[in-house]
């Protein structure tokens, strides 16, 4: 029962954070909303039985990406500048799209019968050891490719962002 209510709390965090991120006009609040949402998501991952991914979520997303976004914001927009008035028609269109999409997907989900696995795999199978083993054997190519992509991204980011020599 307690476990259940904790899960609902995480769901609430995800949605509240998402709303902050989507609707706030100040970029800083949006970033904070993103962080809250990602935190809730990490909790949901935990409830789904994957502590490692949850930890990675917190470490990389909240600790890395969110902070990087904050830096970018600070480097680009003067915090004191009042954000421009929102375009009402544009917001309406965005909300309309989102609502239509949400209900379409919800209808699909309700309409589909998923084959449910009777008993989830045992805790041991979800261990970090099993994950690491899979990553370095079966999914080795993906792992290496991803590391290459990250390297390229870093080099590319430096190249793009550096000051031009005049």
């Amino acid at each position, binding site marked *: 029962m307690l476990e259940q209510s904790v899960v609902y709390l995480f769901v609430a965090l995800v949605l509240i954070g998402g709303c902050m991120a989507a609707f706030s006009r100040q970029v800083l609040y949006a970033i904070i909303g993103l962080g809250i949402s990602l935190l809730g998501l990490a909790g949901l991952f935990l409830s789904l039985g994957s502590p490692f991914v949850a930890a990675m979520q917190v470490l990389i997303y909240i600790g890395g990406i969110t902070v990087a976004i904050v830096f970018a914001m600070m480097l680009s927009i003067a915090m004191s500048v009042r954000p421009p008035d929102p375009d009402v028609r544009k917001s309406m269109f965005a909300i309309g799209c989102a609502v239509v999409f949400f209900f379409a997907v919800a209808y699909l989900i309700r309409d589909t019968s998923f084959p449910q696995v009777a008993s989830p795999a045992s805790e041991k199978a979800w261990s970090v050891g099993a994950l690491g083993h899979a*990553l370095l054997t079966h999914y080795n190519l993906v792992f290496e490719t991803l590391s290459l992509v990250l390297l390229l991204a870093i080099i590319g980011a430096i190249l793009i962002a550096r000051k031009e020599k005049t």
Partner: protein
Amino acid sequence: MTLEAYLIVAAALFALGLIGAMSHRNLIALLIGIELMMNAASLNLMAFNRFVVADPTVGQIFVLIIIGLAAAEVAIFLSIILRLYRAYRDIDAEKLTELSG
């Protein structure tokens, strides 16, 4: 919580991300929306892995890869933002129309 509940939550998060990505003019807010949508996809993958696919590692590895790609994407995106800001003193998505016909 059932699979359907997780999926609904993911769909809601995706919709919120969509609103964020569509309604803001600020490039950083746009990036935040995109991140939300990506995380909604992650949640989907984790939930499906838990309830439908017996193999315990697939979904987790997918999510890890998504996180890695998101990191790379954010790095590039942020450097582009910095560059744009330096060039135009602005990161309003609607004002960057130099290529428009």
